[in-house]
């Protein structure tokens, strides 16, 4: 998994498929980074992702719980239609911002 930390903001570059198998590793690594760098904003970058199941929703919800305690936010960027559908259906869109990029 690729991560980038800029000040108090963590960007997680998600893999092609987000399922229970790689969600476990992602949670562990992200939590360590959040803890160490006093992260307040978490950005999930779905650029490479074409599959996500409810385990991915669990990852988002869990990170939201952590950063919301200190007034932080969770964002999603580059989410394709399928990923948006999964997020909308799960209701996770109520707690996170989805960044809509301009369509060219």
């Amino acid at each position: 998994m690729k991560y980038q930390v800029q000040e108090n903001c963590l960007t997680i570059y998600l893999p092609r498929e987000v399922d229970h198998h790689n969600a476990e590793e992602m949670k562990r690594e992200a939590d360590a980074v959040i803890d160490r760098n006093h992260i307040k904003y978490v950005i999930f970058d779905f650029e490479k992702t074409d599959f996500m199941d409810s385990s991915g929703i669990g990852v988002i919800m869990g990170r939201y719980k952590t950063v919301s305690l200190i007034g932080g936010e969770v964002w999603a960027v580059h989410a394709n239609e399928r990923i948006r559908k999964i997020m909308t259906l799960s209701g996770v869109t109520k707690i996170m911002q989805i960044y809509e990029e301009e369509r060219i």
Partner: protein
Amino acid sequence: MKNTNEMEIRFDSRSENEGFARVAVASFMTQLNPTVEEVADVKTAVSEAVTNAIIHGYENKVHKICIRCRISENVLTVEVSDSGKGIEDVQQAMQPMFTTMPEQDRSGMGFAFMEAFMDSVEVESEPGKGTRVKMKKTVGKGRELWTTQSL
């Protein structure tokens, strides 16, 4: 005789196999000429059922999971079964947001996703014996209009 086809796979309940399981079912269903959307729906549902078997049915211990697929006309039936600990209260387990493991960041959306993406979901479970999830989906519903049109 109807157009039918069947396949069955058995694999270890390791999380590495989640990807294998959904791709195997997805490739079996290609003979129905599904849309990208329909394949994604089935992959998500299979992923949820297999994940449930691994973390709830077998509680992360390694045993066997069985997937049986059947195609009859344009209906795909997928059965995911384990012989794990079973579900005490199936109705409660199927409630959206219900989870026995909130501390592990489980969203509790597994069955809700299966129901959202498949036409029907039936769960048979007996505590101590195991669980079988049977899902059906009609593939290529709205396509007849133009596929039957000849020039």
